[in-house]
């Protein structure tokens, strides 16, 4: 049983508040990813789960047991570190065997389990090498093998892919997902890369300023961000934001008004927001563009990505907008365009608190 519960977890470093009351339940066998910008408290939270940091207050449960006072090695966890933390003075074999040998496991058993873990991670040929002789991807696999050999019920990972190049990172993402399916263990993974979080997680925890901003499935977070911060953090390119106000529209519905933009809102928008200032958020794929000589926008830049093209355009507002269009679109810099937004995918946020309004 490897359910983890964090109850009102707080961590202060002197007068600085790193984690300001985290309440979270991580299900057994779940792949949970904590994501957020640097300094948001995600690594500190992970370190408190591992036992490397002591909470200022709050409780950590692993299974039914409060583990606050247990040493890291007594919690039945495995951890992969940001710079992998392989012991440079030991061979790959000795690195993988370290956890077994400090627990005085019989040497025959050590040999058998190390070879099994190495084979599972396809590093059987590296056992006599030193970490310095391994490539980035190989070292990554050694770190994973060192963790899986101890058969932990919980895997903690602190930005383990950050030191890899882009191609290898993509490969390792797939591999980690396979590993999770195979082991069915609980994975708690920390990253600042929203793409990693989107592609691997069963659930994502978005953190900011030591607090949880939103917890949800990747698509839920992408489609219904709980705050302007979450909306801006997820998605490439960044969501378009316009400052304005919500007012009663021509028919029954509401509309959003800003400089040169009047956008009808979906019928599900709560009537209570009428008359209040708001930030409209809309993703690039929900901006519709059409060439038009009398359109309000003018294309400033295009970025072809192969499968789609990003079109940046000015419209007289405070910042340019970006739209995703078909890669064969004839639009180019200087072209006049007309634009509007898909009303079902317009997000409204409070300009003060950033909280979602619709």
């Amino acid at each position, binding site marked *: 049983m490897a359910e983890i519960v964090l109850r009102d977890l707080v961590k202060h470093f002197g007068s600085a508040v790193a984690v300001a009351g985290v309440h979270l339940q991580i299900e057994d066998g779940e792949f949970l990813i904590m994501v957020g910008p640097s300094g948001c408290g995600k690594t500190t939270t992970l370190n408190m789960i*591992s*036992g*490397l940091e002591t909470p200022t207050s709050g409780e950590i449960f692993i299974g039914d047991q409060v583990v606050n006072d247990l*040493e*890291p*090695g*007594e919690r039945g*966890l*495995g*951890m992969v*570190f*940001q*710079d992998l*933390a392989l*012991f*440079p*003075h*030991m*061979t790959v074999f*000795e690195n993988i*065997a*370290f*956890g077994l*040998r*400090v*627990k005085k496991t019989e*040497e025959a058993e050590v040999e058998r389990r190390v070879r099994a873990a190495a084979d599972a991670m396809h590093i059987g040929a590296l056992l006599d090498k030193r970490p310095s002789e391994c490539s980035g991807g190989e070292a990554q696999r050694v770190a994973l093998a*060192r963790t899986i050999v*101890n058969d932990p019920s919980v895997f*903690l990972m602190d930005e383990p892919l950050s030191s890899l190049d882009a191609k290898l990172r993509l490969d390792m993402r797939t591999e980690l997902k396979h590993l999770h399916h195979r082991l069915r263990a609980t994975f708690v993974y920390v990253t600042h890369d929203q793409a990693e979080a989107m592609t691997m997680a069963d659930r994502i925890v978005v953190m900011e300023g030591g607090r949880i901003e939103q917890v949800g499935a990747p698509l839920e977070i992408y489609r219904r961000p709980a705050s302007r911060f979450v909306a801006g953090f997820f998605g490439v390119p960044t969501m378009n934001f316009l400052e304005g106000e919500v007012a009663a529209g021509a028919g029954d519905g509401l509309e959003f008004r800003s400089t040169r933009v009047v956008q009808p809102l979906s019928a599900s928008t709560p009537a209570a927001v009428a008359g209040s200032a708001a930030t409209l958020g809309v993703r690039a794929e929900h901006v519709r563009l059409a060439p038009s000589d009398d359109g309000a926008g003018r294309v400033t830049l295009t970025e072809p990505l192969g499968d789609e093209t990003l079109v940046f355009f000015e419209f007289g507002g405070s910042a340019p907008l970006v739209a995703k269009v078909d890669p064969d679109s004839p639009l180019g810099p200087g072209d006049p365009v007309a634009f509007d937004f898909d009303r079902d995918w317009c997000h409204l946020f409070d300009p003060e608190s950033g909280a979602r309004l619709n």
Partner: protein
Amino acid sequence: MAGSRQPAAAGAAPPSRGRPPPGRRLAAWLSQERVFRLIPFIAVEAVFILVIIIPFILTIYISLLRWRANRPFEQANFSGFLNYGRVLGKDEFWMALGRTFYFAGAAVILELLIGFVLAYLLHRHFRGRRLYITIFLAPMMVVPVVVGYNFSMIYVDSGPLNEILAPFLEPFGIDPRIRWLSHPLAAQWAIILADVWQWTSLTFLIFLSGFAALPQQLVDAARVLGASPSQIFWRVHLPLLKPAIIIAVVIRSMEALKMFDPVVLLTFGGPGISTQTIAYYLWQEVWVFNKYSYGAAASILLLIFFAVFIFLGIWLLVRQRESVRRVDV
């Protein structure tokens, strides 16, 4: 297009000038890339040749002569390896050499152990840490003459050291008036302890920087893998500190084998010759008895002995480091 550029390029050509003065020509020559990068190299080599190579060759030359400084150099005659034979055949030389290894061995081992323990205790951050570090580094900065003077006061028969030891010794019927500087064995340890007091600071500093350079994530990884504090010390800290240990051993051994100041300041080699180190012995042979060529031969032999000893030590430590990697944890 190319044709239209041609006249402009020709028009931009610099007008021809006369030859620059010799000073500027030298400066221009020196500032060339192939010359300029050699200048620091030549300066260093010149200092190296002047300060090391020439005196070294001169020492070898003098060691092959028969010459005392109280006689004119013109009367010195070539004697081949006679001086070397005399040095190697002299009991005092071997006794002084043996004593030096004994003093240096005891002092360096104590300095390494105490320095390591102090650095281990102070490598974590806590309140007042900087104050302790400053206190432990202070002895290294004291002038050796002052250290010698202080210890000569401490070692006086009715001095503070005997006063402190008295309550521990008297219950066992031991006379607490230890004659630190006039009993052969006590005098030897008096010199060793003075050296340890002054130079533990250096090993402490080396180990402290070694601990500071240890990546915390390795210790964290070992903790998560279930290692106890003692397992982390023996299997992570110690092997990773081997380079710092080697540096401390080499630097301190090289210095301790030249131990001279405390001997002069505390005992003048006495009582008898019981605290004569090889440096003191050589000083006496050369500066008191004017045996320059004998001293030169002894210096060359010592250089060979010490070099072999230091390299053997390094080789043993490095080999031990290799075996630590293979030892079962």
